[in-house]
C-alpha cells in the first residue's frame, strides 16, 4: 500500500514538472523566434518581444529567377537571411517585372510583456520575435536578417539573393550606359 502511494507521489511530481515546463514560451532551436500556444506564459528572456501571426514572404518563381514578395509583419525566415530587399519600383527598374501593390492591412503586434503574461487563445499559433526591422537605405533597399519583422514601409518589396542582384545590377548598368551612349551619339 505504501509502495503504491510513493509511486503515485512520484508520478504526480513528474506530471507537475512537465506541466510547468510546458507552460513557458521557448525559442525554437537555433533560431531567435518562439512559437506561441494559448495558455503559455512569457518567459523572462522574451520579455519585450512581440508576437505576430505566422506569415512568411511569398515565393514567386519567375522565368529567370525566384524572388520573394514581402508583406507587413512577415517574419524573415533563415533561408532569406542575407537576401537583398528592393522596393517594388526599384525591382521593376532592375528586372522589368512589375509586382502588384500589396496594401497589406497593418496587423496587430502583441507585446510579450510583462514576463509571465499568459498567451491568450486568439494568439495561439503566433510567433514571438524580438522587435527588429531590416535597416532601409535610401528608401529603396535593405539587407534581410533572419527573425526580423518586415516593416510597413517594406510592404510589397521584393527579396532577391545576392547573385541574382549582382546579375540584375550588372545588366541595369549596361542598359543605362548603352542608353546614355546612344543618346550622346545622337547628339
Amino acid at each position: 500500500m505504501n509502495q503504491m502511494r510513493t509511486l503515485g507521489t512520484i508520478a504526480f511530481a513528474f506530471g507537475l514538472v512537465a506541466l510547468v515546463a510546458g507552460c513557458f514560451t521557448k525559442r525554437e532551436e537555433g533560431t531567435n523566434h518562439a512559437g506561441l500556444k494559448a495558455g503559455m506564459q512569457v518567459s523572462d528572456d522574451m520579455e519585450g518581444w512581440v508576437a505576430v501571426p505566422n506569415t512568411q514572404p511569398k515565393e514567386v518563381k519567375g522565368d529567370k529567377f525566384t524572388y520573394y514578395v514581402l508583406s507587413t509583419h512577415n517574419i524573415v525566415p533563415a533561408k532569406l537571411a542575407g537576401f537583398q530587399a528592393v522596393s517594388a519600383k526599384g525591382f521593376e527598374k532592375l528586372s522589368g517585372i512589375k509586382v502588384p501593390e500589396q496594401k497589406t492591412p497593418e496587423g496587430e503586434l502583441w507585446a510579450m510583456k510583462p514576463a509571465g503574461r499568459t498567451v491568450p487563445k486568439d494568439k495561439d499559433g503566433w510567433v514571438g520575435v524580438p522587435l527588429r526591422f531590416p535597416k532601409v537605405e535610401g528608401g529603396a533597399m535593405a539587407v534581410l536578417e533572419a527573425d526580423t519583422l518586415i516593416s510597413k514601409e517594406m510592404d510589397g518589396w521584393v527579396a532577391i539573393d545576392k547573385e541574382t542582384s549582382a546579375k540584375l545590377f550588372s545588366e541595369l548598368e549596361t542598359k543605362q550606359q548603352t542608353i546614355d551612349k546612344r543618346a550622346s551619339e545622337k547628339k
Partner: protein
Amino acid sequence: MSDAGGSAGARLPQTFGEKLSFAAPVLLATLAVAVLISFVLVWVVSGQLRTELKKVETDLTTKNDALNKELTEEKKKTADLQKKADELTAANVDLNKKNEDLKNNLGKAVTELDKTSKSLAKIVTDLGDFTYEGQKQVDATQNQGLAQHEQKIKYIEGRLEILKTLEADVNTLKGDTSELKKEYVVLKGDLGKVRDKAEITDKDLSDLTERSRIFQLKVLSARAKEAAEQARSNDIKSLVQRLNQE
C-alpha cells in the same frame, strides 16, 4: 748784505746795445726758423699748383688730340660726300637725257596701246563669262571640301564630348582604373591631334571611332562589373545610388 751778494752774481745788460747783443742769437734763430717755415709752405703750395697745372695741361692735350682726330674724319667724310654729289649730278644729267628719250617713245607707245586695249577689251568680255563659270565650280568644290572637313571636326568634337562624360565614369569607378585612365589620356590626345590635322582622312575617323567604341565598351564593362561586386558585397548605399540614376 743781500745787495752785496746780488751785485756779486752775473751782470745783466744795462744799455740797449748790450741788450741787443745779448738777445741777438735768440732773435736770429727765431728769424731763421720763420724763414724756413715760410719757405716750406711756399714749396708745398707751389708743388700742388704745379701738379694741378700739369693735370689740366694733360686733359687739354687729350681733348685737343681728339678734336683734331674728329676734324680729320669730318674732312674725309665731306670729301666723300662731295665725290658722291658729283657722281649723282652726272647721273642726273644722264637720267634727264633718258627721260627725254622715253617721253618721245611713250607718245608712240600710247597710240599703239590704245589700239591694243580696244581689241583686248573684247577678249576680256568674252573671257569674263567663261572665268565666272569656272570660278563658280572651283568655289563649289572648295566649299564642299571645307564643309566636309568641318563636319569631320564636329564629329571628332562630339567624340571628345562623349569621352569627357566617360572620364567622369572612369573617375567614379572605385576599383583599379589606372589602365582605363591611361587609355583615356592617349585616346583623347589622338582625337585632339586628328582634329587639328589639315587633312582628316576617312581612315583616321574610322580608326578613332573604333577605338572610342572599344574604350566605351571597356568602361561600360568595368561599371557593370563594379555594380555586380557591390551587390555581392552588400554595398547597399552604392546600389541605391545606381537604382536612382536616371
